[in-house]
């Protein structure tokens, strides 16, 4: 069989510069005296969709010897591609899906970063594809892989991903072209030459090193080490109480204590620890020699989040912190000495206003249609300039209401809910431990603001109504877990309704509490 062309597929997203990369490669190939062909099907994919560019290269010398031009195909063929370069990890997956990456043949060069698809982004909770599984599959399917974060590389060099991809291709050595010619092409383009060359070189080096060992594993953000000494003498007792808890839960509880302390005051942190300790005692009663503390872990986590619910005071506090200004400055890539303003978008509803008032007054407002109607006048969306004196002071003073927070309507409501929730957990734990654990996890439904928060609370109470049925089922725990997912499946709550309708109560059966499964499988 005669010489065959080199086949390269670029898997990219519309508007990501895959076309630029293809043009560069054509130019390089022609300077290297190769016959080059590229083709694509941009169409509507130019508008953020997934698209591929396909290139073939053939040595001119051989064609001239044969006295005929090679016949080059217009699309990649499964099992017949030498190299696939993907600008994003899921697109590498898509190339594999199309059969373009085969273990006997294909070098796969891919960025490890993700550009999330709309379905992943718009999920009501965690909807992103499993990068760990993707990375594993990519490795399994390709003959050779070059994996690194091209997006980060581009940004670090103030360049674009196409120059990074060019560098990666050059560094991976899949094309018989000289490095100098790659660089020449960037220079000839005349646009952002310096930064593009820097990005090219950076990517070249990364690719030369080959597989970066990327696994896509998520690592726990909890600080595992519990300090021996508290910052101040006054807080030492808190720390000592945490140290008396089982080792596995200490990191979570420490974070929870810090959170509640930051949210209110030491007394509030103590209240948090009181509640955690009573759950710890419960665990101890249930299992003499427990190796894992599923319930304690879940309660400690959920309780910390619930006790630090986002009320207007909390939001004002977070928005006015110096650390926040610094984070914003970093995020918007402002130069060190560049001036910038920040504008917040606040739209408090009557509920929020009343919630910030002393409980009695708040209830009176909400109970009186006339007052509510009048207050509605003040609920128009407001833009607050946090870096002007007026704007800052307004939020700063609001944050200052913290010391009276315990008296506000919202605090009283949330606190009651928390106590009811904890009581239910405690009662459940003895009859059906796993349901209790899932009830602790169910707190994640109650989040957000305004309508989002209302929806979450609605779903949460719907689940509470099912507890008796669930407690009576040996598989109650897994069912409740399923219901929580169902609640997060759609805004209208249709999936949840369906799942609940499907529940057919079974007569209660005496069940010894099931052995606690490892934390991982439950939380």
């Amino acid at each position: 069989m005669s010489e065959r062309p080199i086949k390269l597929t670029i898997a990219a997203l519309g508007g990501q510069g895959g076309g630029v990369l293809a043009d560069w490669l054509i130019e390089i190939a022609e300077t290297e005296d190769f016959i080059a062909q590229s083709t694509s099907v941009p169409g509507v994919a130019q508008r953020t969709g997934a698209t591929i560019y396909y290139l073939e290269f053939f040595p001119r010398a051989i064609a001239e010897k044969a006295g005929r031009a090679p016949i080059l195909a217009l699309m990649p063929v499964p099992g017949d591609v030498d190299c696939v370069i993907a600008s994003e990890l899921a697109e590498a997956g898509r190339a594999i899906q199309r059969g373009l990456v085969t273990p006997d043949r294909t070098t796969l060069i891919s960025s490890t970063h993700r550009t999330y698809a709309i379905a992943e982004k718009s999920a009501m909770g965690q909807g992103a594809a499993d990068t760990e599984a993707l990375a594993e599959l990519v490795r399994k399917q390709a003959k050779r892989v070059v994996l690194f974060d091209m997006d980060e590389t581009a940004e670090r060099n103030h360049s674009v991903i196409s120059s990074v991809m060019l560098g990666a291709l050059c560094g991976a050595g899949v094309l018989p072209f000289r490095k100098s010619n790659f660089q020449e092409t960037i220079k000839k383009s005349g646009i952002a030459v310096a930064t593009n060359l820097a990005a090219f070189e950076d990517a070249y080096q990364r690719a030369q090193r080959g597989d970066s060992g990327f696994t896509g594993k998520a690592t726990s953000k909890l600080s595992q080490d519990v300090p021996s000494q508290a910052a101040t003498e006054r807080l030492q007792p808190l720390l000592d109480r945490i140290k008396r808890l089982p080792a596995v839960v200490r990191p979570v509880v420490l974070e929870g204590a810090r959170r509640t302390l930051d949210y209110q005051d030491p007394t509030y942190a103590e209240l948090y620890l009181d509640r955690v300790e009573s759950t710890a005692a419960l665990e101890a009663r249930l299992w003499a020699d427990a190796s894992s503390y599923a319930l304690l872990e879940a309660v400690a986590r959920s309780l910390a989040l619930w006790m630090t619910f986002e009320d207007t005071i909390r939001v004002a506090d977070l928005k006015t912190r110096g650390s926040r200004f610094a984070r914003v400055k970093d995020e918007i890539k402002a130069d060190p000495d560049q001036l910038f303003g920040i504008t917040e978008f606040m739209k408090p509803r009557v509920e929020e206003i009343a919630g910030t008032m002393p409980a009695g007054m708040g209830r009176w407002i909400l109970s009186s249609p006339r007052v509510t109607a009048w207050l509605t006048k003040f609920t128009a969306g407001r833009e607050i300039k946090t870096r002007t004196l007026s704007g800052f002071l307004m939020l700063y003073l609001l944050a200052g209401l913290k010391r009276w927070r315990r008296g506000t309507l919202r605090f009283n409501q949330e606190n009651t809910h928390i106590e009811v929730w904890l009581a239910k957990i405690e009662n459940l734990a003895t009859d059906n431990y796993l349901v209790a654990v899932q009830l602790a996890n169910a707190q994640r439904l109650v989040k957000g603001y305004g309508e989002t928060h209302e929806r979450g609370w609605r779903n949460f109470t719907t689940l509470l109504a099912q507890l008796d049925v669930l407690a009576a089922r040996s598989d109650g725990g897994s069912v409740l877990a399923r219901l929580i997912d169902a609640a997060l499946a759609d805004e209208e709550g249709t999936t949840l309704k369906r799942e609940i309708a499907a529940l057919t109560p079974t007569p209660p059966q005496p069940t010894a509490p099931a052995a606690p499964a490892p934390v991982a499988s439950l939380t």
Partner: protein
Amino acid sequence: MAERSFAKEVETLRLGAGDEFHGEGILAVTKALLQSGVAYVGGYQGAPVSHLMDVLADAEGILNDLGVHFEASASEATAAAMLSASINYPLRGAVTWKSTVGTNVASDALANLASSGVMGGALIILGEDYGEGASIMQERTHAFAMKSQMWLLDPRPQLPAITAMVEKGFELSEASSTPVMLMLRIRACHVYGVFPAKDNRRPAFSAADALAAPSRDYGKIILPPSTFAQEKEKVEKRLPAAVQFIAAAGLNEFIDGDAQDVGIVMQGGLYNNTLRAMELLGCADTFGNSGIPLYVLNATYPLIPEEWVKFCSGKRAVLVVEEGQPEFIEQAATQILHQAGVSTRIVGKEVLPRFGEYTVDSLRTGISAFIDQYAPQLRATGTIPAARKTQVSPEGAAKLAALVPPRPSGLCTGCPERPFFAAMKILQKETGPLHISADIGCHSFATLPPFNMGNSIMGYGLGAAGASAFGTDGGKRAVAVMGDGGFWHNGLTSGIGNAVFNKHDDLTIIIDNGYAAATGGQDIPSSRGTNEHRQGNNSIVDAVKGVGVKWVKRTHTYDMQGTLKLLREALKTPFRGPKVIVADGECQLNRQRRVKPIMRKAIKDGQRVVRERFGVDPDTCTGDHSCIRLSGCPSLTVKDNPDPLRTDPVAHVDNSCVGCGVCGEVAHAAVLCPSFYRAELIYNPSRWDRFMNSVRCSLIGALQRRSERNRLTI
């Protein structure tokens, strides 16, 4: 001014004999037109032929030097009607559009043109939008060629072949007094290649010559009895002339192969992929030397009976590689052979896919099946190894399906249509679902996530017309959406005028983004920019009033509150009759192209510039993503939750944000959450800026340090 500047490509149009043209297929066609002495060119943009229009639009200078008249036609019908210049005069004309949608629009003029017949060569360049990357319903242009008797060329997807066919196409058209269609598939339009250029030719005869001495022939008028004579001439004169020319000029190619009792016939456009499939099967090499005789149809209509008989005689079976359905060529060939008494078996869709694009993979499978069935001895002699099989394991495939999220097209970052459709989504939370008649354009993407609205799409500019049946019902009002492109294409009459005349009580929204944005930002009559060759700035509102609409209002899409109010009013108002809302908002792609350089220069020149962009505070975002469900902006995405206690990802605005303001509007309109912020970056601050900043920083800083001191941690 189109999305892409073709200044560089335009220069390649100046190339002459001895030069080598390097570039995209569709640009090569443009060059070939000038080499053929074309006198006038028109057309309507649409993938995959938009670049042809864009390049010509950027090349007015060269065209004027050559005396070539170019028009960005109002519609494909306009372009087709333009070809009438070739009926009475020896003027070569060419038009282009996306097929089959554009050909549908042009059919009326095309049918009449084909009946009258032409004196000057008339060439219709069609981007066959079929298969992967297509954005329209899947049909074949071939049927139009047959019904109106126009010739159809389908050249090999290589620049030398394509450009040669442009020149031959004009000759064929003149030799047979018939308009000729040249179709190019998507990949052929975008294929990069090389061909030896020739000098451009000034048209021998010009429009001015025609106007100086008009010629008239009643025989060319579409009225009886001429029409009967024209039909007779089609069959008795033009068809034979075409067959004779195609055979004599050798437009179709015969390639020998050792196997004598089988053969393969293919559409020219499928040549490269068919040969690759054969190479993979081991019955052809990289240079196209084939083990099986080939007959390549660069002209797919009309077919040349003599050539078929010659190729098929003595063969057991011949495989016809014909993409799409119905299988017109397969049917015609069977008839030709039957009538010629040739017993060769014609094989086609019994081994190849009955519908859809012919990928190399499907061709490999089909040809392999053909060989097994009709030439097993080829396998026996080992000429043909078993086809390579794709190597993704089934379980791997299953895994992937779950891992690889679908990636539908969507509105670009900062698209002005996003806030409008977000408003529509909020509106429907109040009104319940509405019947929405959608249209063609960027706004078609509103039928996809996250907006998911629009009940039907009837065609370009037909959004309002599509709501006609619900126009006067008097129940919940129907809503129609139409783009400014579709509006000028035909929507003004087919939709708005019709609604007025028939006293519709519905609501039509015209999205005015200032360009034919979906096809690459070409100018349209209402475009704001100044263009020396076009008369822009024609008001949509005036046009709407002109056809009799009494209730017409404007809104700016970025003003979501105002838009929402207007939408509510339009649906509730007691006013009976068509209601029209013109929703303003310049296409962000084009806006950025216009604004960015200006801003960069201003910053360089030391002027005070404020650049806005949005952000999300991760510590107040609770990861519900309502904002994303109402926006879907590419720059509004998610990232890992930095909070060690939370698992749900938080919303995040990446650097591509252009600060269009939608995030803030959505946060307010939907009462979402306080996590969004807008940052105003100041370049070249004034003295006052610096002074105020220092005052603010010192005071605010002091307060922040104070609360920092009081903040406790373990």
